[in-house]
């Protein structure tokens, strides 16, 4: 399979971007952004967990500098079993009066993410993490508007601010509440899709819709609006689930 790697192209584009066409609010070092508020959690930790948790007691040090670093040891006899974690069925975003059902979406032509035809509904990308799974990005997409259906469920996504809450309800009625940490706008050819959709890294919720000017030639918006939220602490989750 020799497909181009969008992640690489995106990184390359980011390096070349030089902030062309940026409007206001952009944070430092965000060359890929049209606009950016807050910060997404890093997907790949740059510091090694071993290094950061090492107790600095020379007596405890292993026989000096081994050139080898153990990453993990696992029981290989356990097979990866089908994941029975319930899927998300509803999303609530009080700050922008959104409460809508969530359907399951996959891929359509040219590996574009399918977005629910009914613009009032949102879609959970079936290859992304499930809420409450403890790791990776849960991706929920929704239309900003339709061709002829007016404003969509995520029309006001661009109004969200860090600190706003988003609650996702799963099929087992468990609610997972998140707090917005970042809102970003990317030109569509600079969206860091690999990172946004990664099932690695800290547990997070990624909401995506369209934004920017509408290009009447391509019949598409030029940008994607991306909101990233992280789960609120466990005490509050328990409170929310009462």
């Amino acid at each position, binding site marked *: 399979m020799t497909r181009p790697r*969008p992640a690489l192209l995106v990184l390359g584009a980011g390096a070349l971007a030089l902030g062309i066409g940026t409007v206001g609010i952009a944070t430092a070092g965000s060359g890929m952004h049209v606009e950016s508020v807050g910060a997404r959690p890093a997907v790949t930790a740059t510091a090694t967990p071993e290094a950061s948790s090492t107790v600095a007691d020379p007596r405890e040090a292993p026989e000096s500098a081994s050139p080898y670093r153990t990453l993990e040891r696992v029981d290989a006899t356990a097979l990866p079993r089908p994941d029975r974690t319930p899927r998300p069925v509803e999303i609530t975003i009080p700050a922008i009066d959104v409460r809508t059902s969530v359907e399951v979406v996959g891929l359509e032509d040219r590996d574009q993410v399918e977005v629910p035809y009914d613009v009032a509904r949102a879609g959970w*990308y079936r290859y992304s993490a499930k809420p409450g799974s403890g790791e990776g990005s849960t991706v929920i997409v929704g239309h900003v508007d339709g061709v002829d259906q007016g404003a969509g469920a995520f029309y006001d996504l661009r109004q969200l601010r860090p600190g706003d809450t988003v609650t996702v309800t799963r099929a087992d009625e468990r609610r997972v509440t998140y707090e917005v940490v970042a809102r970003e706008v990317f030109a569509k050819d600079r969206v860091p899709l690999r990172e946004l959709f990664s099932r690695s890294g800290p547990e997070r919720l990624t909401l995506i819709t369209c934004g920017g000017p509408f290009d009447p030639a391509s019949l598409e918006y030029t940008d994607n609006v991306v909101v990233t939220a992280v789960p609120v602490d466990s005490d509050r989750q328990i409170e929310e689930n009462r």
Partner: protein
Amino acid sequence: MIRPTLGRVGIAAAALALPLGLAAVPAQAADMATVSVLHAIPEGAGADVVDVFANGDLLIDNFTPGTLETVEVPAGTYDLAVFGDGQTPDDAEPVLIAEAVEVPGGVNATVTANLDAEGAPALNVFVNDVSAMAAGEARLIVRHIAAAPAVDVLAGEDVIFADVTNPNEGVVVVPAGDYEASVNLAGTDTTVLGPAPVMLEEGTVTIAYAWGSAEQENLALATQVITDLSTGPEGVPAGGGSTTQLPLMAFGIAALGALAIAGAGARLAATRR
């Protein structure tokens, strides 16, 4: 003493080295390699607890059957040696060795300590294909490292790898999802492993090892999972434009209105005349 043929790792790894070198990984990764070691010699074969050394340095301590340890090592050429628990190169002879294993920078490889087809301990080196996959895809690799004859590997009713022999592998990219996996004696309906439900997660390499011994009746499956290799989708088309067309339409209506008013004004002016 078993000296496995190791030419394979050098060649395959060289082919992999370039794309890996270009991948968006930390700079130092080009000089490092990821090596997993699978202990796949069943209990009772004299290797229940072993230590693995690489170039004379302890690589893995207290290693037991059915476990997989992953280490990061500098790129280089390695002499691997497996010793009984607590023994070292200074005071004992190794149980198994593999000499001059080439490990290029950026490569991902798995060394298996297993039984060969005849039931003798062996070391094998496999290079893992960790190239990126398109959205929705998963890669399945099946490796025969058991003291057993040739096998077929099935997903549901379909044979996906036929006639796999020790120490060979099959590699395939499939749609991510849940599968019912089983292993049959090659060309027969005799199932020796499974059927077992297995999840092939999107963007993940799942390596299934058939290990153990048919004669000892301890054939089993072991798995190694390497995650986060999906490129992600190509885009999110989440707008139709109706809300931006509204202002245009509004402008149009306003313009028509203005024309109408102007027209009416003109008519008015005309009637006044």
